[in-house]
């Protein structure tokens, strides 16, 4: 960094005592600060030009004005960075330090004033992940797909973390879903007192396929229908329940399928990829529900019930199946004919039946009919299905018992309603709830008693589940109380509502007791449950969503996919961070490290030798390695590419935003973006130079481009390269000069340069973690504490230490 303008802390502290008295402040601004601005800032940030969208000629010395405070903080940062002014004339360092001290004092004072009255995180909706987890924990449902919360519109956030309170909107589309979800959940919890009686359903092939072409569906001479399963393709070859049955309630059902294998030894099996007659003919039985998409193809609700081996004799096969409410079984011949509905069959049609072209049969009869007409080989024939149920091991089921303390009363009356709803609300809303708070809900439930007591109970519970108490985080004003802390801790570290244990601690005031709080946060951080949070945090912080938008090109990067590395790139980063946390390693390993966390696929991808064994492990790097740190990880390099090509601009911005915490302003609105040309007519360096020559682009791109150039040595999947490949083999020019004149020849020097700026990284990481933990953007108000935490990272560098410090910070512990 350029030493000329940066201000040593010692000098700064010394100067703090020299600042004129408060009364003279305005005068000081007029006589000293304003002239400084006029001389060094206004030429680029005044009436005529507003570079970087900043204007300082109208700035007020009243820091309580939000806008001004923001501008002053920004100026302070720039002066500290030594970035401004970029050109002569430069102020003397004494002069500059004087100004810095003045701004700092004013800033500290206003911060103190404002912090006392700030709101903190505004009313914060549960994100979808939090909502699903909370709901499932509340009733102790167990289903990795969270089907009951299926179909919620995603949380739509373009920038920053997706748990940002301001950005998380509630809409009528979402609210309609909340109502639906609540209904579905309660339908599974509030069940009739008596055990439902079992009954029987008889399903003919008409029920099973609705008479469609697939599977091949016929009637025999006596008019009895049957269906032949031929293909193995999941979509076209399955046999599902079109009508006549769906499980009326979750329970055990006996499914009897009448079936047999026909034409087992037909010689055609050699022509198709059909099972050898000697093989077992396997019929897979699954469950699915219409609610989650078409049942004629895979949908998210599918689950496996049993695989049957079908023999040559016609007989019943019984499957005892656990079916959820609304679900029905379907079948697939798992090792059936491959290509039964495509090329293979047309070939046979040609060979055996003299059919001329693919189109002749396809167009005439439709794709599916072809198989029926020309396929003669082995098949599984299904004659029908019988379902009997539901049966129960216990009644009411566990979930219901749990929700109503073992048993529902014989009669739900007004008194029970009142006490149960208050209790339920306290649990669902993650805090003690007083009766009068939900008096309207209790009234509603009571009013419905006449139409059925269980129904009344259900309506009351539904209203609780669609109230702000459930849908929004609990956070009290000012310093968080026990329940506020319990929620904030639990949602941040574990992504869900506080556990029963944690709530018990809250009841006993243990979270506001410093000693037990400190003990608690260590236990929570050290729980493996925190890994999920790290993964989610990394995904958002490092922009991994971009990798999904622009996946690395499958043709250009064949070996990347073939070697399996493609599956592990984000996992490498997750493992890297988990290792940092679990072993309390220095956070600066994110900037540069002398090891990598790799598995064998990633080691091979990076061309690193000496990796042995399975899973992810730390591998020591040779001295002066190009690897080490986040920016040389394939995940980050892919996230900053467009799947094929790389751009120093994108990567430069990424480094500024995510490592240095100094995001550049958006490009001015009146500048048309550059249109890239990858034909190689001009080199990248030439293109960027042209860009920087344009007045409106230069002030920012002077800073951005050099921070991306040294990464040009890495392609879109993070492999090292010295040329751009293709016919022209243009040589990569990674050397660059930063905006303050530091020369960087290559990636190794670049990492050194970033290391010299590690205080910026410390601040950036602290800020990102706090934003994610509190659900809001950090502002100048929190800067005092963030700077303090970052300062502490100069000596105590461990990632676990940082997390603990953050959990103890006022920013985290207050609303």
């Amino acid at each position: 960094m350029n030493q000329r303008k940066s201000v040593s802390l010692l000098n700064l502290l010394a100067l703090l005592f020299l600042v004129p008295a408060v009364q003279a402040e305005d005068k000081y601004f007029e006589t000293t600060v304003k002239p400084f601005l006029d001389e060094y800032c206004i030429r680029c940030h005044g009436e005529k030009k507003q570079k970087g969208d900043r204007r300082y000629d109208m700035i007020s010395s009243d820091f309580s004005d939000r806008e001004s405070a923001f501008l002053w903080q920004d100026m302070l940062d720039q002066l500290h960075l030594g970035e401004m002014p970029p050109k002569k004339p430069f102020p003397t360092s004494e002069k500059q330090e004087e100004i810095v001290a003045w701004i700092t004092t004013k800033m500290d004072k206003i911060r103190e004033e404002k912090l006392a009255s700030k709101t903190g995180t505004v009313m914060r909706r549960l994100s979808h992940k939090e909502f699903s987890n909370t709901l499932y924990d509340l009733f102790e449902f167990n289903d990795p797909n969270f089907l009951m919360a299926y179909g919620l519109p995603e949380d739509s956030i373009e920038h920053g973390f997706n748990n940002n309170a301001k950005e998380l909107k509630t809409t009528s589309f979402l609210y309609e879903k909340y109502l639906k979800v609540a209904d579905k959940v309660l339908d599974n919890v509030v069940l009739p007192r008596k055990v439902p009686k079992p009954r029987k359903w008889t399903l003919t092939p008409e029920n099973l396929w609705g008479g469609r072409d697939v599977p091949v569906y016929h009637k025999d001479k006596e008019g009895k229908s049957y269906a032949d399963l031929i293909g193995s393709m999941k979509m076209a070859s399955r046999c599902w329940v079109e009508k006549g049955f769906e499980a009326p309630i979750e329970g055990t059902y006996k499914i009897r399928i009448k079936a047999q294998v026909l034409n087992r030894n037909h010689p055609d099996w050699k022509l198709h990829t059909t099972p050898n007659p000697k093989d077992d003919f396997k019929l897979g039985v699954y469950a699915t529900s219409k609610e989650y998409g078409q049942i004629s193809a895979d949908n998210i609700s599918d689950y496996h019930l049993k695989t049957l081996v079908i023999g040559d004799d016609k007989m019943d096969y019984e499957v005892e199946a656990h079916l959820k409410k609304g679900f029905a079984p379907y079948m697939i011949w798992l090792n059936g004919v491959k290509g039964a509905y495509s090329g293979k069959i047309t070939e046979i049609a040609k060979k055996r039946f003299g059919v001329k072209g693919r189109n002749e049969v396809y167009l005439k009869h439709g794709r599916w009919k072809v198989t029926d007409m020309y396929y003669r080989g082995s098949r599984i024939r299904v004659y029908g299905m019988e379902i009997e149920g539901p049966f129960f091991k216990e009644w009411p089921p566990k979930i219901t018992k749990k929700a109503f303390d073992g048993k529902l009363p014989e009669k739900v009356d007004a008194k029970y309603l009142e006490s149960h709803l208050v209790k339920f609300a306290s649990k669902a809303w993650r805090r003690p709830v007083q009766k009068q708070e939900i008096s309207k809900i209790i009234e509603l439930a009571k009013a419905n008693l006449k139409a059925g007591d269980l129904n009344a109970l259900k309506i009351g519970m539904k209203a609780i589940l669609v109230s702000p108490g459930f849908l929004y985080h609990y956070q009290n004003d000012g310093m968080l109380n026990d329940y506020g802390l319990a929620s904030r801790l639990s949602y941040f570290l574990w992504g869900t509502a506080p556990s029963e244990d944690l709530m018990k601690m809250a009841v006993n005031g243990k979270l506001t007791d410093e000693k037990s709080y400190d003990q608690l946060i260590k236990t929570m951080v050290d729980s493996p449950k925190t890994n999920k949070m790290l993964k989610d945090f990394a995904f958002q912080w490092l922009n991994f969503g971009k990798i999904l938008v622009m996946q690395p090109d499958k043709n250009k990067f064949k070996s990347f996919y073939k070697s399996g590395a493609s599956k592990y790139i984000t996992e490498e980063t997750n493992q890297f961070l988990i290792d940092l946390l679990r072993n309390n390693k220095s956070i600066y390993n994110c900037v540069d490290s002398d090891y990598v966390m790799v598995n064998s696929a990633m080691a091979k991808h990076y061309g690193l030798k000496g990796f042995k064994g399975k899973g992810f492990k730390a591998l020591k790097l040779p001295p002066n390695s190009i690897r080490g740190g986040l920016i040389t990880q394939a995940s980050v390099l892919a996230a900053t590419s467009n799947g094929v090509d790389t751009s120093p601009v994108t990567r430069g911005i990424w480094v500024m935003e995510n490592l240095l915490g100094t995001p550049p302003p958006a490009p001015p609105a009146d500048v048309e973006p550059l249109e890239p040309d990858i034909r190689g007519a001009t080199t990248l360096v030439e293109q960027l130079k042209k860009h920087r020559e344009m007045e409106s682009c230069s002030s920012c791109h002077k800073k951005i481009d050099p921070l991306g150039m040294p990464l040009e040595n890495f392609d879109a999947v993070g492999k090292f390269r010295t040329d751009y490949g293709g016919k022209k083999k243009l040589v990569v020019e990674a050397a660059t000069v930063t905006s303050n004149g530091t020369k960087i020849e290559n990636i190794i020097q670049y990492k050194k340069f970033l290391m010299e700026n590690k205080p910026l990284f410390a601040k950036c990481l602290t800020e990102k973690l706090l934003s994610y933990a509190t659900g809001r953007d950090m502002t100048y108000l929190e800067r005092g504490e963030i700077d303090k935490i970052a300062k502490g990272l100069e000596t105590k560098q461990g990632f676990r230490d940082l997390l603990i410090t953050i959990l103890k910070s006022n920013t985290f512990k207050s609303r």
Partner: protein
Amino acid sequence: MMNRRNFLKASGISIALPFMPSLAHAAGQKTTDAKRRMVCVHQCLGWEPRAFFPKEVGKDYKLSKTLLPLAENKDKFTVYSGLEHGVTGGHYAEHAFLTGVHIEDAKKYKEGNISVDMKAAEHVGFNTRFSSLHLALPGGVGRYDRTSWTRAGVSVPMQEKLDLVFSQLFTEETLTARKRAKKILEENSSVIDTVLGQSKDLSRKMNKDDKVKMSEFLSSLRETEKKIQAQNKWVMSAKPKVKGIGTVPSNIKELFPLYYDIIALALQTDSTRVASLQLPVTNNVYSDLGDDITEGCHLLSHHGHSKSRLAQLAKIEAYHMTLFNNFLNKLKNIKDGESNLLDNTIVLNGAGMGNGSAHSNRNLPVILAGGGLEHGEHKNMYDKDKIATPLCNLYLSMLHWFGVKADSFGTSRKALEV
């Protein structure tokens, strides 16, 4: 009595209404306007501009490469150049295509960033089972519901699961199921009432910042209540009977046409009068269109002038345009009142991105078809100083055509002559 055409003229709104028999009735005779529909197709990635915009202006223009698949309908559509919204941000500004207003500026407008389709949907209200229909071709990435927006600044979820859409529109529930649905609707109505009442009490004690969030919550409840009323009106009535769609295919050549088919069916059966289709930002490789397609759509839009990428892009765009042409034909062949469905449907196709490769949001590609309007022209909307016209001017005209009485829409200055 003044007929509609004259009425509009007299009120100073310059909009050419189609000559329809119903409008020619003698004064004093009761005239019933045909039901008017609106369809908006949003190509999020934009149309490659060099291939899209025709060289010549006026009636005698030659179809550009991208427009070639529309040849048989040349007199049924108008292509525009020189229309834009004046917003920037590349992909982050696509969402303004049907609104004209960037989400961040929404507060400055009295109707926020409501989109033209939603404005039309408000006009229809409960008169159809669905006030609007919002579909998206599958494969969109990340948060990509960015076509239709409510006046509250909320993006309307676009549906991509065709079978679910189809069953919402056309699958008749059993009487028991309908009765149960009605019961739940009524129950929900009272639950919302209760939660509203309780939350309002809460709101009184809140600080300024929280109040903003609370009012967002309350208004989504009120909005839901309105929807419930609409659903309640329709829940017991029979749905139109149409032929099923069978298994939803996975090959995009079979799959994508179904989206247009369902829209046509929905309009034809008057299940809705407003529909939007989003062709999302996807990076799927459309190899179903041919083995020569080897790269993802999003990537191809950033072609960097590479010949091979441009060729692939052209093929994909031609495919989309062919589907659009088939859709126009389909509407044309459906009889509607005394005319056909295309004459009673105003169809927009375009993008919020003028040049995907450069992430430019200028000079947006726009096609306006149908509505019984006079078409067959390439209209250049740049003035002599090369200043573009607000695309919202066109939207305002579309709304007027639709029957919405509005003085302005989004960033419009005045209605365009269409």
